[in-house]
């Protein structure tokens, strides 16, 4: 028999503190779908995803009912599509649309993997593929795209960085009537991971097994609630509280992941130990930082608080799961976190502070609305800065910014649902154009030579 406190604590976490399994993501290899033409390949891709993931939603919903813990999203990630369409890159959109159609019919919310890995150089077929991204994102609903432009081992492909600034702008323009929604489905990475269950950056790496189940846990509200009961704790004690809470959250994720994999007759991949916020009140990473004693997220001390939080979440989570992976850490998307939205709207958090925060958390500049007339080269320069942080610090960094068409600083963009809303934030005005147009490869850092 369990004691009362334990049972009621779990129930309270779910019912009052937004504890949930944020996503059960099935990774599916598409390598066996390559055929002689775009049309045949698209058909094979559609058939394979429909077959492999046919029971994903039903199984996840069943688990949710039986264990009494919500599973918010059911998703699929696939092999980077640029590899599947390498022989006919101009037909990549056919595969993208087939994937989107499958996602709709499966009843999942997002499917990730309209992706390319160009961190050391862009092949000819990848050049063509990259140019298809804006149109495909505008013409699909659930498809997500990501591009890896750098890594600690290879350096940063600055030609690709230069290209991505324009691609992001075009993706925004083509979805202008929806505030540039296309950009919410497009991430530019450095050190992208192959087993990430979270969107928009999920894809199924070529080193992965045929089909796997990766699970992303959540629960910022649970951590904040636990800290509320220790207002006088010093930061060592606060870190311990976060660790213990992260352990419990992750154990729930591990249980669901194992059970989902078993019922779907698939391998268990990883649990991603992330604190993923939503725009709902009580589900905010920013509010955890404020619970630690900051008046508002973005003030001095924010980076230190986030570093402690991120590390404690990992330490608690690592012991709770047999296989940890993905991005694992605290997410700081602006539009998807009510505390961040409030701080950004009040002008209390800046892009510079967000950039500093990305040095110590698990992701990068995420879901940030910027003026629609931001030059392509400025966006590229933001990507270069983030990629440099990732490359030098051996961590994943990403940029998911939305240059909202027709909007200027002070306006707001609204995507609804988990994608939330965000004020348009100012970017620096100085011209980065000449630096970006130089192109080439920023060489890998000295500490990459480990062999």
């Amino acid at each position, binding site marked *: 028999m*369990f004691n*009362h406190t334990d*049972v*009621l604590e779990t*129930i309270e976490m779910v019912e009052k503190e937004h504890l949930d399994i944020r996503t059960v993501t099935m990774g599916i290899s598409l390598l066996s779908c390559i055929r002689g033409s775009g049309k045949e390949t698209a058909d094979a891709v559609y058939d394979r995803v429909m077959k492999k993931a046919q029971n994903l939603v039903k199984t996840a919903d*069943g688990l949710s*009912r039986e*264990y*009494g813990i919500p599973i918010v999203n059911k998703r699929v990630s696939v092999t980077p599509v640029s590899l599947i369409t390498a022989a006919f890159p101009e037909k990549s959109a056919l595969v993208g649309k087939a994937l989107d159609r499958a996602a709709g019919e499966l009843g999942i919310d997002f499917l990730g993997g309209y992706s390319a890995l160009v961190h050391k150089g862009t092949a000819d077929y990848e050049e063509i593929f990259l140019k298809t991204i804006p149109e495909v994102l505008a013409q699909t609903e659930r498809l997500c795209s990501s591009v890896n432009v750098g890594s600690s081992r290879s350096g940063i492909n600055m030609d690709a960085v230069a290209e991505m600034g324009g691609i992001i702008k075009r993706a925004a323009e083509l979805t202008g009537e929806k505030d540039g929604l296309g950009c919410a489905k497009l991430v530019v990475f450095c050190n992208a991971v192959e087993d990430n269950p979270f969107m928009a950056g999920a894809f199924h790496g070529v080193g992965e097994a045929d089909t796997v189940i990766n699970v992303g846990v959540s629960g910022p509200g649970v951590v904040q609630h636990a800290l509320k009961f220790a207002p006088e704790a010093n930061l060592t004690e606060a870190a311990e509280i976060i660790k213990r809470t992260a352990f*419990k959250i992750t154990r729930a994720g591990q249980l669901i992941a194992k059970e989902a994999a078993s019922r779907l007759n698939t391998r268990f991949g990883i649990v991603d130990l992330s604190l993923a916020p939503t725009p709902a009140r009580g589900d905010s990473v920013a509010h955890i930082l404020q619970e630690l004693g900051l008046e508002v997220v973005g003030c001095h001390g924010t980076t230190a608080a986030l570093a402690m939080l991120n590390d404690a979440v990992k330490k608690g989570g690592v012991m709770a799961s047999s296989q940890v992976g993905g991005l694992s850490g605290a997410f700081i998307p602006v539009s998807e976190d009510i505390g961040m939205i409030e701080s950004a709207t009040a002008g209390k958090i800046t892009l510079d502070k967000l950039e500093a925060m990305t040095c110590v958390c698990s992701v990068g500049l995420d879901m940030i609305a910027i003026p629609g007339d931001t030059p392509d080269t400025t966006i590229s320069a933001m990507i270069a800065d983030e990629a440099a942080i990732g490359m030098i610090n051996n961590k994943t960094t990403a940029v998911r910014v939305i240059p909202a068409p027709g909007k200027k600083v002070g306006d707001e963009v609204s995507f609804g649902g988990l994608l939330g809303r965000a004020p348009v934030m100012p970017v620096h005005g100085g011209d980065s154009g000449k630096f970006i147009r130089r192109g080439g490869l920023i060489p890998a850092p000295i500490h990459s030579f480990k062999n």
Partner: protein
Amino acid sequence: MRAVVTVTGSDRRGVVAKVSNFLFERNVNIEDISQTILGDQFAMIMMVDTSESKIEFSALAEELEAKGKEIGMTVRLQHAAIFDAMHNV
């Protein structure tokens, strides 16, 4: 299968009898039962075995939830494994 039934709410009159009887009718065996008062809230926790249940687990969970509404309490049925995982190393 080991599962946990939790009943919470403010009105405790006849709750044990009603829920126990409901489980008995569906051939669900109660292995342990305990009650507590948290502030003005009543909480009852039952450890049950559903392996001989007349209906399958998710249907049982739905019926229990409906029964809870009928008696003005919140009733949940969950696999015991979730509590095991979160609270026992």
